[in-house]
């Protein structure tokens, strides 16, 4: 039984000699912008949910549930970009390598957009990080654990929240991690939506 995967493998260069493929930057920037904004908005909702929540002493709060969807959304930008590219240029096959590249660049774009928006939000609400820290400390203080351990946890959490808020840290971890995950989802997108892979 011959199927598409076997045909792809037998004829990986069948589109060789054709004119250069159209640019993928429109798809990358569109998906990067959309998912960057979505990731930023969801993280904003999570932050304000933490700020406005009553201290429960629980390690898992409803706001973290929003975080689950935020990370899933951020990881699927590459898939949207390849879908957009496939829709825009229906006659152009998407090779796996190109899907991976589109996905990686989309991950980079998502990180840059969400970091820029986070910094812009600092002008809108300069006290947000401090409110987050105060709310988190109140929640940790409500936990049932030895005081020494509680204090260590509070110190670490405050330090972590402050360092995560810097542009450098957000880019240092955001670019490679978002890039890798979206590279993979970009490949998956090329496989699902592309006319031909390989």
């Amino acid at each position, binding site marked *: 039984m011959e199927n598409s*995967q076997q045909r792809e493998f*037998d004829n990986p260069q069948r589109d060789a000699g054709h004119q250069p493929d159209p640019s993928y930057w429109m798809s990358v920037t569109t998906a990067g912008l959309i998912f960057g904004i979505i990731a930023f908005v969801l993280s904003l909702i999570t932050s304000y949910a933490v700020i406005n929540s009553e201290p429960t002493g629980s390690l*898992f709060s409803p706001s973290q549930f929003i975080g689950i969807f935020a990370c899933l959304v951020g990881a699927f930008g590459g898939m949207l970009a390849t879908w957009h590219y496939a829709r825009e240029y229906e006659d152009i096959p998407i090779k796996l390598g190109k899907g991976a590249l589109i996905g990686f660049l989309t991950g980079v774009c998502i990180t840059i957009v969400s970091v820029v928006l986070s910094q812009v939000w600092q002008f809108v609400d300069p006290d947000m990080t401090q409110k987050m820290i105060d709310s988190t400390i109140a929640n940790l203080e409500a936990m049932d654990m030895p005081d020494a351990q509680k204090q260590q946890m509070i110190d*670490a959490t405050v330090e972590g929240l402050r360092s995560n808020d810097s542009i450098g840290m957000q880019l240092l*971890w955001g670019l490679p*991690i978002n890039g890798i995950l979206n590279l*993979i989802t970009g490949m998956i997108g090329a*496989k699902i939506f592309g006319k031909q892979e390989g």
Partner: protein
Amino acid sequence: MQTHHLTLYLLVLVLIVGMVIIALGGGLFGQQQFWLLQWQHQALAHLCHQAADRSFWIGGQPMAVCSRCLGVYSGFAFGWMLLPLAGFWKAYFYRSWLLKKILFATAVINLIDIIGNFAAFWENTLTSRLVLGGLLGIAAAVLFSGVFFNRKKESTGDHYGKLTTTGI
């Protein structure tokens, strides 16, 4: 066995194995720093809620991702490592649309499990989340079976003497 885009395969293999190692957290390496400040937790902070009570523990410290995320990463890595075997045994005869449906189904099952647990219809466990996440990861990797590795054989039919995947 013929290979195709081997560089891309190896690149993704290195990246996903690296992700799994990072996801295992500092406990694997016996890091003494408080786990919230370890670089593994910082790196994956925006990808996972990292709730300690929803993560596996290793070396007395929670892993850097929750059990479901660990399942997705490790499942994808496991499935990716199986691709050469799938190519060797020609286990890529399944139609592409079936593999896509399986991937979609596992994603939906995970979503239902998240919502059902949050709405208190049922209570999932570390293991159940690991397994469901793992199925999603494997389904994503299996989508690429027959793409990077394929066992061709000499045709005895229309393309007599040439190497094809079907031998026809």
